[in-house]
């Protein structure tokens, strides 16, 4: 039994550099935990430099709730704690041991555990932090319970990793993970897959879940869009969500008692020589992934995450806490002579003012992958064009009005216009096509943070 849900609006942007079906295990010399990956978390350190840690040893806890622990992905030695402006902790760097040593969290059978035991185990192992909550995309408060939990089983963003590959052979762990989630909510466990792309039994044969097959274009893979179709968030509601690959890690913890933060990730983008998959642990340094595997030395942008929503990192940077993609694209810091008037055969645009824009009218299967770079292609302006954002935002929300409400910080208006139902990532396509070059995701993120601070979670 499965539900088929069609999402009409949205757009799949095809970009050069999709990953091949090949998984390598890279050499990783450093790992990092980046507290800034976790929204609303102020870290309180539990280790010092040169401390020895095991895989699963707590590194820091959240200031607002000391039960929420963040644990090491590997056993090794804490090399350094890097601070940024105002002494904010940006990275905790760990050098891994050659032979891995694990904290033991016990192998008690799930059947004999109650909700408190399960929550306790997740918190102690640090795997609680894999679950996030809407509204706000934050780690949920363990004392609360959601109206349903979403297992996110596909990604629709450009150059996304193929979940059939990421999840291969993890059927038992994912099923156990689902059983764990069932202890956390009275509501449904929704497993959301792609109607066109998902073929793996790891998701399609799961027991005790509501299987939803989503049909459509990006952002159909975003949980906001899925929640809106399944069970819209009202004021006061909370919905939790977790990535299917991370759910396997939780399953593994309950099967073995060990924290094994393994993830298969994809290295993608138009500047990658061999775009492919890698098996590594959270927070791995990408140095040896990209070394010798990019088309040029300089002027590249390395992104942990997708080209729509990821964070910029350096060529020696670290994979983010919730990312399964590393994208490498061209930096666009060039001047473009009369670029605003030339016909534009090769430029990326969804508008038909460029000849290349007409190619984007083709159905999504026939679209040719395009080259992109990070040039802003113009100066920032006040909003002028209207009616464009609506085409790529499949929510019953007025995007321009919500963005403006966030800019003026009117929390009543933001609430009325549906801020609880969205996350910054949902506006990524709006941001891409915005002629006024506004940083929309940042505006929405700041709006959400304002709400969270004013109203609490």
């Amino acid at each position, binding site marked *: 039994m499965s539900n088929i849900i069609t999402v009409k609006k949205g757009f799949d942007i095809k970009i050069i550099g999709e990953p091949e079906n090949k998984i390598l295990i890279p050499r990783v010399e450093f790992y990092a935990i980046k507290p800034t990956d976790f929204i609303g978390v102020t870290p309180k350190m539990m280790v010092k430099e040169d401390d020895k840690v095991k895989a699963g040893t707590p590194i820091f806890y959240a200031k607002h709730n000391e039960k929420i622990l963040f644990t090491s992905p590997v056993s090794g030695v804490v090399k350094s704690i890097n601070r940024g402006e105002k002494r904010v902790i940006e990275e905790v760097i760990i050098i891994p041991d050659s032979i891995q040593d694990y904290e033991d969290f016990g192998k008690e059978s799930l059947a004999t555990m109650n909700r408190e035991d399960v929550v306790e185990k997740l918190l102690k192992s640090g795997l609680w932090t894999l679950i996030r909550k809407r509204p706000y995309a934050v780690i949920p408060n363990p004392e609360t319970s959601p109206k349903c939990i979403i297992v996110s089983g596909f990604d629709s963003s450009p150059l996304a990793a193929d979940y059939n590959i990421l999840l291969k052979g993890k059927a038992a762990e994912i099923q156990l993970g689902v059983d764990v989630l069932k202890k956390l909510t009275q509501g449904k466990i929704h497993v959301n897959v792609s109607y066109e792309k998902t073929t793996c039994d790891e998701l399609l044969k799961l027991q005790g879940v509501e299987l939803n097959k989503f049909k459509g274009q990006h952002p159909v893979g975003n949980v906001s869009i899925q929640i809106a179709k399944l069970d*819209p968030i009202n*004021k*006061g509601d909370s919905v939790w969500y977790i990535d299917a690959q991370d759910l396997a890690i939780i399953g593994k913890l309950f099967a073995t008692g060990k924290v094994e933060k393994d993830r298969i990730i994809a290295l993608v983008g138009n500047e990658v020589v061999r775009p492919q998959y890698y098996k590594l642990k959270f927070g791995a340094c990408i140095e040896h992934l990209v070394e010798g595997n990019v088309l040029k030395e300089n002027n590249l*942008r390395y992104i942990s995450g997708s*080209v*729509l*929503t990821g964070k910029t990192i350096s060529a020696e940077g670290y994979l983010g806490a919730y990312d399964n993609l590393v994208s490498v*694209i061209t*930096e*666009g*810091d*060039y*001047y473009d*002579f*009369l*670029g*605003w*008037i030339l016909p534009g055969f090769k*430029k990326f*645009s*969804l*508008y*038909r*003012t*460029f000849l290349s824009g007409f190619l984007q009218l083709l159905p999504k299967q026939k679209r040719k992958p395009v080259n*992109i770079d*990070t*040039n*802003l*292609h*113009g*100066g*920032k*302006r*006040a*909003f*002028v*064009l*209207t*009616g464009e954002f*609506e085409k790529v935002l499949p929510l*019953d*929300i*007025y995007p*321009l*009005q919500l963005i403006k409400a966030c800019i003026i910080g009117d929390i009543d208006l933001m609430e*009325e*216009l*549906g801020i609880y139902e969205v996350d*910054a990532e949902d506006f990524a*396509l709006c941001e*891409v096509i*915005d*002629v*006024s*070059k506004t*940083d*929309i*995701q*940042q505006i929405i993120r700041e709006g959400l943070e304002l709400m969270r601070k004013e109203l609490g979670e």
Partner: protein
Amino acid sequence: MKWVRNLLDNIKPNFEKGGKFPWLHSTFDAFETFAFVPKTTTKSGAHFRDALDMKRTMTIVIIALLPALLIGTYNIGYQHFLSLDPTMGLFDDVWQNLWYGIVKILPILVVSYGVGLGIEFAFAQLRGHEVNEGYLVSGMLIPLIMPPDVPLWQLTIAVIFAVVIGKEVFGGTGMNFMNPALLARAFLFFAFPSSMSGDKVWIAEKADAFSGATPLAEMMTGGTMPSTSILDMIIGFMPGSIGETSVIAIALGAILLLITGIGSWKIMLSVFLGGAAMGLTFNMFGSNSYTQLPFYYHFLMGGFMFGAVFMATDPVTAAQTNRGKWIYGFLIGVMAVLIRVVNPAYPEGMMLSILLLNVFAPLIDYFVVDANIKMRTKRWKLKGGTNV
């Protein structure tokens, strides 16, 4: 184009803080970004962006206006010489007509752009902003909705009024709530009515003996049908505002706006639907020749077509929600025909109709958005939510 880049890089420090002309920074920036799309890269959010920017958007509109400008220019000359010699054929002396038109329109364009952009540059500098491209379009729209004989000093005052009071006091392009070009025309219409109405102004230096009445004027003074043939109205060789007369030229512009998606098809279509609906309604209760006029005549006369394609679709002053656009456009069409037929004082209703709906557009959007808010509140209450 390396040498242009080098030249710009060389003189750039003069216009930055501590240079010789820091007060010209915005002006320099405007010209620099005109030559080169800047090398700015994305700093937050999506790492790549669409290649379309405001300059290109506005340029598309200007290109869409060129057919109207061209035919308008020729028509100035043709109407002038026709008034001197009513037997003259359309193509009897092409170069003479064209040259006369160019001599007439060039000063108008220069004044419109010179005064308007001057104010834009000054305000951008004061605010420390980049110069917004919005006026590039307004500066072209204003000449096209003027009579060919508009006194330049009056035009200057109108442009200053439109740009300063209509736009800059609200924060510049994107913040204004009334179409600046129409505001310039409305200002002239009420401040200097003798230059903007009557039979004399629609033909440049008209010979007194020639009638020169526009179809709208003929209808208002109780004519049964306009004396201009439908074909002439479509091609555009009749007296009127410079760019408004030719249906074909405006349609060419409309096609470009629709293909590129820069102009809203919803608004364009709904303006015509509204006009047709009102025209047909009058036909049903027709009591005089104007109310009995077939509805499509309204599209061909005066500024209806031009307003529907280039003025009503201005995204800043139009309704901003998709549903609102339908209502906004429809009401513009209705009001334009209503003012034309019923109001005894103003022969042309399009300008006033669009300005009126500009004022009401935020209200229309308010109700559209409010429906969305009510839906959300209702959904919340159904689930047992209560107001705190």
